[in-house]
């Protein structure tokens, strides 16, 4: 278990303020926040790579605040993987084992096992400069895991990859974590990544920890506006009735509004609908009438280049977003009746 108590780190003008966190044994913990929020600094503090001004870090009950990084048994995979360019793949993986009292056969067996698990057995003799992004990430993971660390720190592990590789590796990370059961702290700015992988999520903004909780906690009860805005200020709707429509679809009635969504095979009690996934129109647009509802504009608030509209639909008041220019063009104002279309792929069961 990692326990971070009142930790403060100052790096130039940036300050990480009074961080308090408890990360459980074997947990997949995601630190989520915008760029420059201080996510990487938390990882560096856990790994012992930056100086802590104040506070305490305990790892498995042992005070690690002033422990040098090499004694913490924490593996760290940075955003760009930092594979040593003067070594080949196998030498990179072996790097952390040099000088350790282990029989060669044990070392070889461990490397074989990890290489097999990560699907890089065929790359061992290759030069790291000739690997793709996904391959580099797997090699970096193997290098990190071969030393049998007690904690794995991943800094934006999927952000340098193309969408399809990132999606595939997201599933793989989940599989590795299940197989190895290692406590993992994963830093990202990608909400979807956090949602899919995390047992628990910590939201950080401007060096301050805003909220820690499960995916449901964060979605259903964001503790403040910063969290709510960061996760996209989702509309949370309680479902009164749910019926299977066949063809992989279900109909959930929320506040008297029948919403159609993909059937994920689990009970629907609440759904989350992001303002960005609601299309607003002054006229009834052409096309299928799936998830199309009439509503009344209650309030309009500016939100950077967008406008946020509170629209009453059935018994629900929904938050929707649209560009200011489009709103002005369609002469949408408070008290006007509008049409809302919910993007079916944007509806999430929580």
């Amino acid at each position: 278990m990692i326990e971070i108590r009142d930790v403060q780190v100052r790096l130039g003008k940036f300050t990480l303020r009074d961080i308090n966190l408890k990360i459980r044994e074997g947990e997949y913990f995601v630190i989520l926040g915008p760029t420059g929020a201080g996510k990487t600094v938390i990882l560096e503090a856990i790994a012992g790579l930056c100086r802590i001004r104040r506070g305490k870090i305990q790892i498995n009950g042992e005070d690690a605040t002033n422990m040098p990084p090499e004694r913490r048994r924490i593996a760290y995979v940075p955003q760009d993987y930092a594979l040593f360019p003067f070594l080949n793949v196998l030498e990179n993986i072996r790097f952390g084992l040099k000088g350790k009292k282990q029989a060669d056969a044990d070392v070889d067996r461990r490397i074989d096992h990890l290489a097999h698990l990560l699907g890089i057995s065929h790359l061992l003799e290759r030069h790291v400069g000739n690997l793709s992004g996904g391959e580099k990430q797997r090699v970096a993971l193997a290098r990190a895991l071969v030393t049998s660390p007690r904690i794995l720190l991943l800094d934006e592990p999927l952000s340098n990859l193309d969408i399809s590789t990132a999606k595939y590796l997201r599933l793989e990370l989940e599989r590795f974590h299940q197989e190895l059961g290692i406590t993992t702290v994963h830093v990202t700015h990608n909400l979807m990544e956090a949602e899919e992988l995390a047992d628990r999520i910590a939201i950080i903004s401007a060096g301050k920890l805003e909220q820690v909780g499960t995916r449901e906690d964060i979605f259903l009860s964001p503790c403040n506006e910063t969290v709510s805005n960061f996760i996209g200020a989702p509309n949370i709707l309680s479902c009164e009735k749910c019926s299977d429509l066949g063809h992989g679809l279900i109909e959930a009635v929320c506040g008297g509004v029948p919403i159609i969504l993909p059937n994920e095979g689990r009970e629907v009690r609440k759904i989350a609908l992001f303002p960005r996934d609601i299309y607003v129109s002054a006229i009834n647009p052409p096309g299928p009438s799936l998830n199309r509802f009439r509503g009344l504009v209650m309030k309009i608030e500016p939100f950077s280049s967008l406008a946020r509209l509170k629209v009453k639909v059935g018994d629900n008041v929904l938050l929707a977003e649209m560009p200011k220019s489009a709103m002005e063009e369609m002469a949408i104002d408070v008290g006007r009746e509008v049409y809302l279309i919910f993007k079916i792929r944007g509806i999430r069961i929580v």
Partner: protein
Amino acid sequence: MHTSRVYKGIRGEGVFRAATVGALALLCLFFTGILASLFTYTDWGTLVSTLFSREIFLAIRLSVVTATVATVISVLIGIPAAYAISHAEFRGKSVVDTILDLPIVVSPVALGAALLVFFNNPVGMGIEKYFMRFVFEVPGIVLAQFTVVSALSVRLMKTTFDSIDPRFEQVGRTLGCSKVSVFFRVTLPLARNGLIASCILTWARAVGEFGATITLAGAMKPKTETLPVAIFLSLSTADIEKAIAVIITLVAISAAALLVLRKIGKRGFPV
């Protein structure tokens, strides 16, 4: 209107290109012209016989040996010093940086004169008496070269260390390396090409060092006659053929060093 603007733009680009390429061609012509003029002054027979004379051989040997010793000492002190100035944060770092830059900008003659003055004060005289003689001696050549090139060496190596992403060292630490171990197992291998390039440039600069050398070690044939000193002595006795032979030797050594440097520069790591 629009077409004319485009046309003017194209013409402007052409003028700009002609001006830049012209300046480059002028510089190349200037340098090659100077070097080519050397061959017009003397005939091949005299040149070859002078080149293979014993005096030139001794000057080459002295230059190569002293420059190599000065470079080795510069590198041995320069690597840790460059690492420290690149990585450590301390009060007065900018002052230290400026002190290190001084020998690069100060005239080598001034540095040589300062060394000469130093060996005339009690500490310097004590070193001369009980440790090693430098003034007008071969060790004086090494010391003069070291004084001029060590700062350059530190500056070049600092640039190499600065260019290394600290993440590599951080990952090394998390993989079980101490600070010292990370320096030898991660930092040095990453800096290898840059350090070799620094060594070559330092060595080439030491081979060509003249001002500080002649001031501290003098110009005694053949005792302290390095290649640049040989050029000076030949010119002072109006032995132009010999001066040309030495200049060609010096240019050849420098060109070889630069060729090796280019080769290293191209090697790099395929990251």
